[in-house]
């Protein structure tokens, strides 16, 4: 940006408007007075950080200044890498069972596969250990080798030496639930999400003997992440056509995102689980599958973050500007900003308390962007399904309901009701 010193020099490539020039001068004056006169010594960068936050926070709740230290941390977090073997494990019969071995991970390279057990680490049995303690022994410094005793069912145990490496975590978990496929997408902040999901669907197909009779995609509490991932994940289940459109300040700036033609599992029924914590990219996925009649969405009304932020690195290692630059629209042209996605069936995870408690959503945030659509969007208490009294407190009623829907003709009924609305 050439405007850098615009506040001080009249002759710049892009001369600022007069009023803003005066205000810039005012800010510069105040900054100097504070530096010289304040009761305690102050750092200039702290003052400018305060100024940037003051200005950006007034724009909307998602625009902010990201200081250099935080910016570099965030970049690491977005990659979600950690030292280890590249396996996801559970405890079964006192041993570690491999639930999933990441294909690019060192364990996979050493021949360890999903379904294998680890019975000992460095020759010491793990029988009697808690999962945390057992995993502790496996983790270590990158580059250090660790020897584990691996038991593949119906084979002799063998010792395998694996060199620990930086490993990327999956943003999903999958398992078979009541004979159906169940996938939890925790976050869209992972650029391998789509391929991880494809791989998980293959594994589910194998485990279910070739065909997945129904799929539950759990997006509850998913705060979103990368826009591109939400588009490509939606594309797995749609045969071409629009997934979403994104518009900047001017309508002419509209960008349309389309699914690739050819969908992965066209006949497989899908139920998407959502909650008030499902935001942004999660709402794009739920919204596009709902709008296109490809899935039934159940749970509670989602968060309602219908804006896209650009993270703009600032020159000279000065951190980054996170700024709302666009709004997005579902295939039917609706903005979910402040409104969220309304499920086809409202299902509560919590017991009936006689009323719906207000949950934190976009529309309760100060300075939230407005939606030009002001028609009713609140959930109606009478329409919400609550767990029956006898329902066990430690079980997941929303998941239970998703299974019931997929196993009955309720799925087709809800799908028909969806198209009646269009």
């Amino acid at each position, binding site marked *: 940006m050439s405007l850098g*010193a*615009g506040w001080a020099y009249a002759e710049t490539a892009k001369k600022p408007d007069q009023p803003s020039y005066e205000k810039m001068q005012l800010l510069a*004056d105040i900054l100097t*007075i504070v530096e010289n006169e304040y009761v305690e010594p102050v750092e*200039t*960068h702290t*003052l400018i950080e305060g100024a*940037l936050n*003051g200005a950006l926070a007034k724009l909307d709740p998602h625009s902010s200044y990201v200081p250099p230290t935080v910016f570099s941390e965030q970049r690491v977090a977005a990659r979600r890498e950690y030292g280890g073997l590249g396996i996801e494990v559970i405890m079964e019969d006192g041993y570690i069972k491999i639930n999933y071995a990441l294909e690019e991970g060192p364990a996979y390279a050493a021949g360890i596969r999903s379904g294998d057990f680890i019975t000992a680490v460095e020759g010491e049995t793990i029988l009697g250990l808690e999962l945390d303690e057992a995993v502790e022994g496996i983790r270590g410094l990158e580059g250090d080798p660790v020897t584990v005793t691996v038991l593949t069912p119906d084979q002799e145990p063998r010792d395998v030496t694996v060199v620990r490496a930086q490993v990327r975590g999956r943003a999903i978990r999958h398992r078979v639930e009541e004979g159906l496929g169940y996938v939890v997408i925790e976050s869209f902040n992972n650029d391998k999400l789509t391929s991880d999901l494809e791989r998980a669907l293959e594994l589910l197909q194998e485990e279910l003997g070739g065909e997945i009779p129904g799929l539950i995609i759990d997006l509850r509490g998913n705060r979103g992440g990368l826009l591109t991932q939400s588009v490509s994940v939606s594309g797995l289940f749609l045969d071409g056509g629009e997934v979403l459109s994104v518009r900047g300040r001017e309508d002419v700036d509209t960008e349309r995102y389309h699914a690739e033609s050819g969908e992965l599992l066209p006949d497989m029924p899908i139920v998407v689980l959502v909650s008030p914590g499902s935001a942004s990219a999660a709402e794009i996925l739920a919204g596009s599958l709902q709008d296109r009649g490809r899935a039934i969405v159940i749970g509670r009304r989602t968060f309602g973050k219908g804006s896209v932020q650009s993270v703009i690195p600032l020159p000279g290692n000065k951190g980054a500007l996170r700024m*709302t630059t666009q709004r997005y629209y579902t295939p039917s042209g609706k903005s979910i900003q402040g409104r969220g996605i309304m499920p086809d069936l409202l299902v509560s995870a919590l017991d009936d308390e006689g009323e719906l408690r207000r949950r934190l959503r976009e529309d309760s945030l100060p300075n939230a962007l407005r939606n030009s659509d002001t028609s009713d969007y609140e959930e109606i208490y009478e329409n919400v399904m609550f767990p029956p009294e006898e329902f066990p407190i430690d079980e997941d009623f929303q998941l239970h309901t998703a299974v019931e829907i997929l196993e009955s003709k309720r799925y087709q009924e809800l799908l028909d009701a969806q198209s009646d609305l269009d």
Partner: protein
Amino acid sequence: MKYILPVVGTVAAVGLFAFSTANQAALAVEKPSYSDTFEQLDLFADVMARVRSDYVVEVEDGELIEDAINGMLQSLDPHSSYVNPNDFRRLQEQTSGRYVGVGMEVTQEDGYVKVVAPIDGSPAKEAGIKSGDYITEINGKTVLGLSLTEAVNTIRGEAGESVTLTIARIDEEPQDFTLVRREVDREVVTYEIKDGVPYIRISQFNEKASPGLTGAIDELNRQVDGKLPGVVLDLRTNPGGLLDQSIKISSVFLDGGEVVSTRGRDGANEQSYNAEPGQLLKGIPVVVLIDEASASASEIVAGAIQDRGRGVVMGMTSFGKGSVQSLIPLRGGRDGALRLTTQRYYTPSGRSIQGTGIDPDLFVSSYPDDGEDHTRMTEADLPNSIINEDASNEEATEEESQTIIDYPPEGFVVADDYQLQQAIALLKSGNYNQRLAELQN
């Protein structure tokens, strides 16, 4: 919410400030520390340019930069802020205690403007506007839908111009009053003889405070034939005001000597403020009433009287604002002003009350001991407040739990003001001198 005319917009109620000379500001602008400042301003300008070109909706960048200025100052402490030109003008009026208007205290009720009281000698009083009147229209336009600030701004205007108020009274037809605006003085000192004891209340330390106090003492003296038995000085809920007024008020009770000292950055530029010699109330017993909302200039007066052994301080621990703000006009006030914390102040014994407040000599609560928490917000509760450098002060607060608080007896009506009754009782008991001597030890 109760507002006092003149309304002061967003200017915080709690304040203690000294007017800075224009020179100081000019000097400051002339010697910027170029390199880092320059680079940081570049960063700021860069971000603003990107917001202007790419933000999802168009933004007015004048507003954006004002938000930035506020954000910058709020990151310092709760008392530093930018005062825009409108608020600056009102602030000047507030500190002078003189403004152009029709002269009434107003509040808002059911969407209408309600008169709390007309000010003596004002156009409103002369026209016969009374406490409890409702203003339903201003110049023929309804006040419904207006905020109190908006309504007040409409009532006010240039001196010599008139404004028509439609007044509704219970059981009467609405009536139009046309008033001509002029300069009105708002008194901040009230007084009366209560149960035989002179009682003086100062509600705020503006420029009217010191003349108001001497006037009150003259009048009270006249009423008791020059034999003042003692004085209750009520500084409860007084949020402070001008530093020099706190010195002048203290001078009424103290014969010379230090009232307060201030220090700038790193303890530099220490400045001592002394009472004028020749106290007005020599030898007359004084009880000062304070509470959690007594702040800044109030705390200076209470602290000086306490440290110098001049009177008994009674009530509850005060707010704890131990910093001084300078009001620095920007470009001669055309751009408003900067209210900036530039100094800390210290009582004559050298203590800072920042975040801790003044503990009264005698703790008296106005609320019964009903197990409920009646404490209000204090400086230490404010986000981002500057910390007291003297850690021993914090230990002192810890010990407060051992202090004995005098609560009103069961069934006592809060409105009957137990703290004031106890103050009067002490002055009438004949034990005042003995108590004061005890407190010195």
